[in-house]
């Protein structure tokens, strides 16, 4: 048996009325990777913060190599041998990579000043040591792509020579996961223990022998990964079966009807000659690797991104959708990518977040009629499985998944006929994902149309009637029906099969 490094006993933490952690206990051995799984809001982040010294637990005890571990700050935790690569990334945007790597105590020279040359020299050595010699130490962090920032964040945690390393969703923006896996294997040999938080089961299977699952702040499972099937894991996380995750439903598309949304030859910055027709009852997928034009396309369809040419028609009528307001009036609603900054009004209640576009309709004489507002909102929240008792709460008290349900409810409440969903399930727990899938199915069943971008290929494959694949800002191909597979989409998206299938049909 390997020596015990970290032992957590009956850890508890509550924020106001919310129980974040309730009597969580587990142990971590030297040279072990332990997976930590759970839906959003299950308590993973709180556990990470308690272990890294950011929050102090209300009750319970942590022991590090047998000694009581009560870090008063993150610096204290680092000193004692626990370091963390945070999900939200803790790099300071306006400083260089080199300075960030040196924080909080940049090396000083003889007269007490921080030497830029020394900083860069050390950063070069550190980056090279961790297989990231391609990152330039002098680059300012906020000029770097998210994936590179995440690598720097991970390297900073590794470079502190921890005995316990906490990795919180370390691959959420990473393009080369093998790089991280290699580093993990390397530090494991040195006896480092790793707590690995992720949503991705394949990573758990690749890295961890054991995994812990949290649900509603409690530990529900602590078991060897090899003994569990994916369904076992999903079931433990969601508390119910996830087999019904993708209901195979017959397509509701009506190809003979007038297209709900038709784009012809759209051109603009990041959009090159994009044409498609979205039929009523159809879920039309959009796939593409990062930065291949999906963002501009979705924004352009509601007038948030300038177009140089092309034509947009809604239900057969040419429309200039030059602002989200005009688009909304035409029945076209975008559910944007960044929920926190573009989706929710964080200081408003959940009900106000949903009713905001229709506030005029429920405000005779300009005074808000709360009853009518509630009636209107209650018509749509069952569609997204948003519990009624959430309505009066501040939206920031809700989990990410429930917030997203509220954002979708807002799109429904205006009576949209055409939804543009940009990665609606990102950062959303398994339960909420299922609700979103159900809502999408019901929406198209009633004759609505959905343009659906997702970073998760299996969603596209299982939910869409057809899928457009973007490559270098134009449509590289379109796959539909039986031909729709992850492999084909991926090969089109990476430009490998650019000529192969201009239009649907055939197998890869």
């Amino acid at each position, binding site marked *: 048996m390997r020596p015990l490094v970290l032992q957590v006993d009956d850890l508890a933490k509550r924020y106001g009325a919310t129980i974040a952690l309730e009597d969580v206990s587990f142990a971590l051995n030297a040279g072990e990777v332990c997976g930590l799984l759970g839906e959003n809001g299950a308590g993973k982040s709180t556990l990470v913060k308690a272990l890294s010294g*950011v929050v102090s637990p209300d009750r319970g005890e942590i022991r590090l190599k047998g000694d009581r571990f009560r870090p008063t*700050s*993150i*610096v204290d935790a*680092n000193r004692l041998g626990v370091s963390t690569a*945070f999900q*939200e*990334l*803790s*790099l*300071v*945007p*306006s*400083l*260089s990579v*080199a*300075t*960030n790597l040196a*924080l*909080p*105590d*940049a090396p*000083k020279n003889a007269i*007490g*000043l*921080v*030497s*830029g*040359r020394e900083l860069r020299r050390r950063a070069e050595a550190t980056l090279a040591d961790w297989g990231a010699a391609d990152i330039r130490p*002098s680059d300012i962090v*906020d*000029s770097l*792509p*998210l*994936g590179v920032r995440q690598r720097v964040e991970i390297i900073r945690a590794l470079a502190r020579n921890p005995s316990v390393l906490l990795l919180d969703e370390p691959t*959420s923006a*990473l*393009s080369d*996961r093998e790089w991280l896996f290699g580093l993990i294997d390397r530090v494991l040999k040195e006896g480092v223990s790793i707590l690995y938080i992720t949503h*991705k089961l*394949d990573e758990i299977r690749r890295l961890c022998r054991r995994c812990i699952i949290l649900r509603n702040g409690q530990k529900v499972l602590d078991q060897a990964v090899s003994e569990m099937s994916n369904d076992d894991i999903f079931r433990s996380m969601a508390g119910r079966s996830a087999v019904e995750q993708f209901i195979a439903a017959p397509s509701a598309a009506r190809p003979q009807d007038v297209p709900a949304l038709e784009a012809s030859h759209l051109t603009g910055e990041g959009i090159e000659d994009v044409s498609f027709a979205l039929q009523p009852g159809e879920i039309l997928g959009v796939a*593409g*690797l*990062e*930065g*291949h*034009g*999906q*963002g501009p396309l979705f924004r352009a369809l509601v007038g948030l991104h300038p177009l140089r040419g092309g034509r947009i028609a809604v239900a057969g009528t040419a429309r200039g959708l030059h602002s989200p307001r005009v688009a909304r009036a035409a029945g076209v609603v975008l559910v944007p*990518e960044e929920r926190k900054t573009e989706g929710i009004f964080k200081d408003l209640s959940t009900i106000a977040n949903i009713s905001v576009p229709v506030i005029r309709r429920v405000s005779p004489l300009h005074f808000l009629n709360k009853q009518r507002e509630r009636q209107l909102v209650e018509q749509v929240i069952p569609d997204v499985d948003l519990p009624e008792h959430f309505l009066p709460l501040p939206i920031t008290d809700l989990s990410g998944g429930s917030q997203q349900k509220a954002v979708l409810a807002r799109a429904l409440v205006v009576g949209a006929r055409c939804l543009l969903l940009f*990665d609606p399930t*990102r950062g959303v727990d398994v339960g909420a994902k299922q609700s979103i899938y159900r809502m999408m199915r019901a929406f198209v069943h009633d004759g609505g149309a959905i343009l659906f*971008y997702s*970073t*998760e*290929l*299996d969603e596209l494959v299982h939910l869409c009637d057809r899928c457009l694949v973007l490559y270098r800002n134009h449509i590289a191909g379109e796959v539909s029906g039986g031909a729709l597979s*992850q*492999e084909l989409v*991926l090969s089109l998206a990476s430009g490998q099969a650019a000529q192969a299938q201009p239009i649907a049909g055939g197998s890869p």
Partner: protein
Amino acid sequence: MSLATRLRPARGAAIAVLIYLVMYLVYAISEASATSVFAITNLLDNTIVLAIAAAGLTLVVLTGEFDLSGIGVIAIANVVVATTSVGILGWFGALVAVVLIGAAVGLINGWLVVGLGLQSLAVTIGTMIACEGVALVILAAPGGEVSDTVANGLTGDIADVVPVAAVIIVGVLMLWFVFARTRLGIAIYAVGSDENAAGLSGLNVRRTKLLTFVLAGAAYGCAGYLLSAQTGSGDPRASNTFLLFMYAAVAIGGTSLAGGRGGVFGSVVGAGILTVMQKMLFALGAASFYTSVFSGIIMLVALFVGNLSVLRLRRRRRGGAEWQSATPRP
């Protein structure tokens, strides 16, 4: 240039220097005596109070906070120097006193903001009003007397060629360039840029903010001391018009009022611009009220140009989501 890249190229400050040079050139062409030692000394004397006060304010602004207490501290410092520099404290004692008073006000500001979590804008409005009141208590009406050592020593030239004000400004800038390379200097930028990330990176956010308020207070004290040297007397209301000019100097110098970007160098140049502009307009024969019109326009131009790079950066960063496949890569 590693330092420059680390602290992000100060585009705003470079623009400010350019504006300053153009204005000085216009001033020098239209006024023959502008390049005399006397005129330069006079110009710098007019600049220095605002420059030092803006330098202090810059530190607080860089952390993303507000500080309006500056003019209150300057008022107290002015009346303290006018009542004590001839007599009990002497010129040096008065200097120590005003620096300590400024630091104490800064400490109060910092404690209220950091310790109690109050909003800095509201807190420093409060301390500003209180300080102005204290100045009136110390000296109810303009008057008092400033020691000749102060009044003459800080306004003249060394050996009739080098203005004392120039020496002070160069000293402050050197101090700043050294300070920006200390751990505290880096921490100030980090805190202003992203407070949460700075905390998670292990920096002490509260201590950093507290110290900037204290340092800023001390700088306001020095500015008040220099103001006394200029005017030669005490006037509890002499600094009344200063507040907006301090902020204007900071903004023109390219420091973001949201924190994290800019620096003291730019603010000092910004103060210089506001002063040389008056001289330039006067030399051109423009009526004095045009000065305000110009100050405003210059500030807007500086803001616009300084923000171009930020706007461009924001556009560049707006990419789509990264690809996440549930299956391993082929």
